[in-house]
């Protein structure tokens, strides 16, 4: 029983991190209709940025998050404005392929810059943990979870209540009408992609505090983010949070009761099932 409680807590903590990873992918997909195959590579980039800030400049990984997020926002804005805006109206394969090409480029650049070695971000409090009855709460994971939930709620409030958030949602619903109301799509698309990457950057920073990083983690992370976005639906950041928690718990349970090799089967199996049964996500509108 204690073991089960611990597994559930681990799953929830992992799930919060998953949710913030997928948030950026879901935003870009839902609003711009670009399935960003390089999303995981941007998370990887965020993790390296955090690692660099900590090991070379001594910036605490949690305090460094805004810097990482800002840097990736700028990168995202520039990429969308200078490159992706050129192909957004092309057929689907083309946007899939161009983001795949970006993934290849980023992976090789990271390999050249940081080598293929595993890196970890190890602040002095990395080993600390709280005991909550029989359950142990690792401090770094707990903090990462807290930041992840705060970012998700912040995202939700931003999309719902801010002027820019409304413009983004309006564009997702009807580009032509949004344009008539004075939204400048080129700029707005770039801002949205920038926000997606800022979330990826922050997620990468959090990921680096709880996991090892190397240049090749991107593809697997992208696949997980797909699963979460589809389970949660694309319309709503809270749905993505639920999707992330769901996947985190399922993976932890599968690892314990069936075996670690089945964790990925579980997540992708669920993804396929959800697609068959409710193609717009568990919390999304019925198809």
């Amino acid at each position, binding site marked *: 029983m204690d073991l089960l409680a611990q597994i559930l807590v681990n799953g929830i903590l992992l799930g919060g991190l998953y949710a913030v990873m997928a948030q950026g992918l879901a935003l870009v997909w839902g609003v711009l209709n670009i*399935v960003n195959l390089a999303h995981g590579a941007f998370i990887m980039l965020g993790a390296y940025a955090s690692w660099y800030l900590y090991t070379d400049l001594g910036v605490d990984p949690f305090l460094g998050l805004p810097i990482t997020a800002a840097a990736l926002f700028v990168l995202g804005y520039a990429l969308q404005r200078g490159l992706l805006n050129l192909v957004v109206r092309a057929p689907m394969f083309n946007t899939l*392929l161009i983001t*795949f*090409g*970006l993934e*290849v480029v980023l992976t*090789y650049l990271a390999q050249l810059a940081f080598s293929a070695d595993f890196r970890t971000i190890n602040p002095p409090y990395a080993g600390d943990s709280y005991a909550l009855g029989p359950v142990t709460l690792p401090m770094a994971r707990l903090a990462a979870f807290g930041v992840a939930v705060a970012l998700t709620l912040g995202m939700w409030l931003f999309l719902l209540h801010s002027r820019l958030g409304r413009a983004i949602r309006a564009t997702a619903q009807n580009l032509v009408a949004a344009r008539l109301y004075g939204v400048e799509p080129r700029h707005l698309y770039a801002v949205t992609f920038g926000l997606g990457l800022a979330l990826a950057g922050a997620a990468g920073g959090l990921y680096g505090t709880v996991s090892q990083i190397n240049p090749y983690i991107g593809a697997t992370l992208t696949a997980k983010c797909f699963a979460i976005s589809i389970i949660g639906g694309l319309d709503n950041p809270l749905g993505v949070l639920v999707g992330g928690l769901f996947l985190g718990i399922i993976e932890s349970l599968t690892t314990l009761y069936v075996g670690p090799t089945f964790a990925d*089967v579980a997540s*992708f199996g669920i993804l*396929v099932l959800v697609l068959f049964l409710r193609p717009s996500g568990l919390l999304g509108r019925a198809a």
Partner: protein
Amino acid sequence: MSARRAILALVALAALAGVPWYGSDVLVQFGINTLLLAVLAQGWNIIGGYAGYASFGNSVFYGLGSYGVAIAMVQWELPFAAGLALGVVFAVAFALLLGMPVLRLRGHYFAIATLALAQVMTAIVSNIELAGQNIGLVLPPLNNDPLFYELSLGLLVLATLTVAWLTRSKFGFGLIAIRENEEGAAVMGVNTTLYKVAAFALSGVFSALAGGIHAYWITFLDPESAFDISLNVKMIIMAVFGGAGTVLGPVVGAFSLSAISELLSSEITSVAGLFFGMVIVAAVVLMPRGLADVLRRYRKSGWRYFIENIRMHRL
């Protein structure tokens, strides 16, 4: 014009078929890889290029074909041909069983569902005893590269002829109608479910045969390499680079991209991957309809062709 084209194709084919006689061993091995990739691109072309369904799961067919050959030859000691047949049976069964539900999905959702299927298959196969679980299977070696080369070439010719037939058959028109407007096609009396599943299965048969030949050639098989997802992306890039939805586009794309990547990795080993990524990005921006379209239209408008492409697809 048509006769000239046919003669040209025959000359090219004869030159390709002769490679084992005048080419080096390295060239023959490069050739086998390239020809099999071209078969995959051509197979993907049927479901992705003609029917417009971006399958990211064709590597499953390739893996099933590989395992068909490996299981038949290692576990049951059957001949190679029986293994190929078994792989085709696996592929068709997979297409029929999973094609129905998956092909109900559209667009990105279809792409991602097929991607997930490829992941699930890797994990399932690594737990099946008959398939050697995680360790894989070792096939009896047959050191006959020219034979594998000619087999691969033959398969590519067969796949290309099938696609050529497709472009003038009722089946092919049905697929194009589905790509352009699925509801419209259904209204016009196209049995869209049947057509889509048939296209998925046909594309699977060629991929499975390529996988079977590759498995016997390499003589070693494990789940990771058999269901390699990057193979999927490769075949799509090759088909799109050459021109998806055309008869020769995927073949041209596979040949030219293989050559580019081979050249890059021999000339500038450390950054070859980086340049490959940049070639993909540039190709998508400048020639979104592939080399086939460039060759057709560049002569008329010159460099303005590329600017027109960008103008057509930018925001």
